[in-house]
């Protein structure tokens, strides 16, 4: 921020007229507005993408009418609909909390984008505690969710909120520990430094470094982050078929839109974090120096891939029951993430020669193949083969 303001004052005389603190304030507001606008537009794109992905997975087309080509303007139509809807607040609802809840959830989701590096110089603030800031700010959403559930004066909403709080808090720990496995090789919490530690080509990405543990840490983080954003198979709080709509049952119109947008923004944030910490951020997989001009596009494309992956999982898998969810967090993901941390530390400490890394990679691939064969080959098959005809 200071560098940018100095740059402005030194190179453009007109900016020197405005007193410095005011200039800081203006730059802050402008950059927040830019990031807010960009993420909002991206979120509208995701709303459309979700419906198209859902449609195609379900053997149908999804939106096709609004705007002509594959219904691209569907999100805009949805946005207008949310604006003009009546704002209903239940009579016995706790009004201040009811109004504040969506705002807190929205702020918790969007304010994390301040440190996300879209390219080497394209970020609002390069905090030296980048990833730590993201984790702490996105935890604010829990408060918003509990407020939403409580203030709705609705037992079902309360149930959804309590489940959600338990879920998010439990999954924070595997998230943090799995991310540590990517922070350790970089040696810094700053997101830009983490990406720069992965420069040079896709073999340097943390996903592929420290052979089994980088990969496992990425998978653990992705699964835990799915639970953080309340997506299926972890969407108990919104479990539509059980609790109508969980903690946002009583919300309508723009307030509901806030929850909705925050969810997609959170998904993009998860994609951005996976990209930054495991997939080399804005770096292209090959010819990274030559393609550095395309850095923001590469970053957004990588993140969108993970958002697509999350949508794919939502429309394929059923939902876990709440006790199974808790079991998964504490007894499956947490031990794995600790093991990864241990392994990554061992790799960094022992500094074995490069050939060991290759050997470890080959072993990892064999292990994954064996695991896949055991898990998939052991599926129960129908015991009789149907023969057509009488």
């Amino acid at each position, binding site marked *: 921020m200071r560098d940018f303001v100095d740059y402005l004052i030194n190179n453009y005389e007109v900016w020197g007229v405005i007193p410095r603190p005011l200039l800081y304030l203006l730059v802050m507001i402008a950059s927040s507005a830019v990031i807010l606008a960009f993420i909002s537009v991206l979120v509208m794109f995701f709303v459309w993408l979700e419906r198209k992905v*859902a449609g195609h997975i*379900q053997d149908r087309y999804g939106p096709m009418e609004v705007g002509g080509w594959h219904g691209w303007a569907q999100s805009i139509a949805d946005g207008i609909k949310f604006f003009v809807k009546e704002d209903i607040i239940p009579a016995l609802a706790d009004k201040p909390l009811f109004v504040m809840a969506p705002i807190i959830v929205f702020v918790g989701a969007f304010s994390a984008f301040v440190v996300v590096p879209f390219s080497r110089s394209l970020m609002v603030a390069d905090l030296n505690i980048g990833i730590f800031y993201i984790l702490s700010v996105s935890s604010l959403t829990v408060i918003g969710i509990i407020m939403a559930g409580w203030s709705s004066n609705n037992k079902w909403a309360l149930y959804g909120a309590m489940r959600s709080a338990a879920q998010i808090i439990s999954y924070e720990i595997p998230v943090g520990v799995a991310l540590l496995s990517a922070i350790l090789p970089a040696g810094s919490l700053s997101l830009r430094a983490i990406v720069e530690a992965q420069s040079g080509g896709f073999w340097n990405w943390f996903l592929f470094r420290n052979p089994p543990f980088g990969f496992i840490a990425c998978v653990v983080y992705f699964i835990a982050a799915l639970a953080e954003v309340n997506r299926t198979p972890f969407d108990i709080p919104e479990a539509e078929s*059980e609790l109508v709509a969980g903690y946002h049952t009583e919300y309508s119109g723009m307030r509901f839109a806030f929850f909705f947008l925050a969810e997609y923004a959170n998904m993009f944030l998860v994609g951005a974090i996976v990209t930054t910490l495991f997939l080399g951020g804005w770096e292209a997989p090959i010819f990274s120096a030559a393609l550095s001009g395309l850095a923001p596009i590469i970053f957004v494309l990588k993140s969108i891939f993970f958002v697509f992956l999350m949508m794919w999982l939502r*429309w394929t898998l059923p939902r876990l029951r709440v006790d*199974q969810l808790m079991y998964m967090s504490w007894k499956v993901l947490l031990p794995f993430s600790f093991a990864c941390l241990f392994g990554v530390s061992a790799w960094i400490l022992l500094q074995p020669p490069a050939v060991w890394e290759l050997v470890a990679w080959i072993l990892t691939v064999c292990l994954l193949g064996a695991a896949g064969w055991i898990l998939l080959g052991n599926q129960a098959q129908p015991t009789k083969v149907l023969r057509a005809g009488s």
Partner: protein
Amino acid sequence: MGHPWPWVVGYEAGLNMLETADLLKEGIKEELQSDEMLLNMGPQHPSTHGVLRLVLRTDGEVVKEAVPHIGYLHRCFEKHAESVTYPQVIPYTDRMDYVGSMNNALGYAITVERLMGIKVPERAEYLRVIVGELNRIASHLLAFGTYGLDIGAFTPFMFAFRDREKILDLFEEISGARLLYNYPRIGGVAKDAPPGWLEKVRAFIDYFEPKIKEYNEILTFNKIFIERTANVGILPLEMAISYGVTGPNLRGSGMRWDLRRDDPYSIYDRFEFDIPIGTGEMGTVGDCWDRYWVRIREMRESAKIVRQALNQIPEGDFIAPEGLKAIKPPKGEVYVRTETPRGELGYYLVSDGSQQPYRLKVRSPCFTAMSVFHEIARGGMIADMVAIVGSLDIVLGEIDR
């Protein structure tokens, strides 16, 4: 407890330190007993398969007691049947189990035919079996799709309905309606199959049989689905028999009982088909997964029956001559039971010789299935309530009539 100095209580009672500690523990447990919550699911609820109201007494997420309240869809079917003529009852029977309405009307038609001694022509019998079994497939597809939806998988629902649409198109061609057909009539069927219809049915069966494998891949053997449904809502065989549960719910508990084989009606004794039962493959015998798996395999068996019927169907009349005249059964009473997709549907008909039934009582399979719900739901979690109701495959139209 209440006494301000608990250790004094122990001392005064002559207890040593360990015994006093036990006394304290009991008191603390009393204090920490969490309150039970009365939760109301329905009548408007996304996953109670109709207008069913479940009142749950829960301790946290665990359900201590689940009481179903029915009657929201009661439309006085049995009273109506007393004031209309015999053929006019058929549309009413369609509306009981509206998902498998061909089978309801079939059961009623057989009841009146048995009372009157009407012999149904061969072609009509085969047409009735074909539409009845197609309707069974459609009904099980709906059960499968909505069960997936309850558990949280959105896609199998779309797949099931895509295939169900094809069956509904076939039904529209032959009877004029998509859901409530008024097609099986007393003495036969309403109209003959249009030209080309039987080939279309064959084409559908050819298309449908490989689809079951698709359903198995996306839902049946999905680890998450198995974890949600195996060992949940276990219905022991003795309890099923004592409550009078029939159909796939009884077969899921391990008993190979199917009225099409054990008390044959119509021409079902001419077809070869298996009776799938639940064997506790994924969990315990009689859990939700078993009942669901029975339905999936029954779809396959129904496809087999349809294929055999298509091979055997002769030309001929589609309705007996008595069916075209005024229906006036002799005085008497008869009870006929048939195997619908939901279980044993029984019609008890009392005739006084006039053109209107004197009394028509229906024994509804979903009613007995619902009656066992409070037993098998105890101790489950709220998410399990949804899984159990879905696995019983109830249709409120039939429960309430």
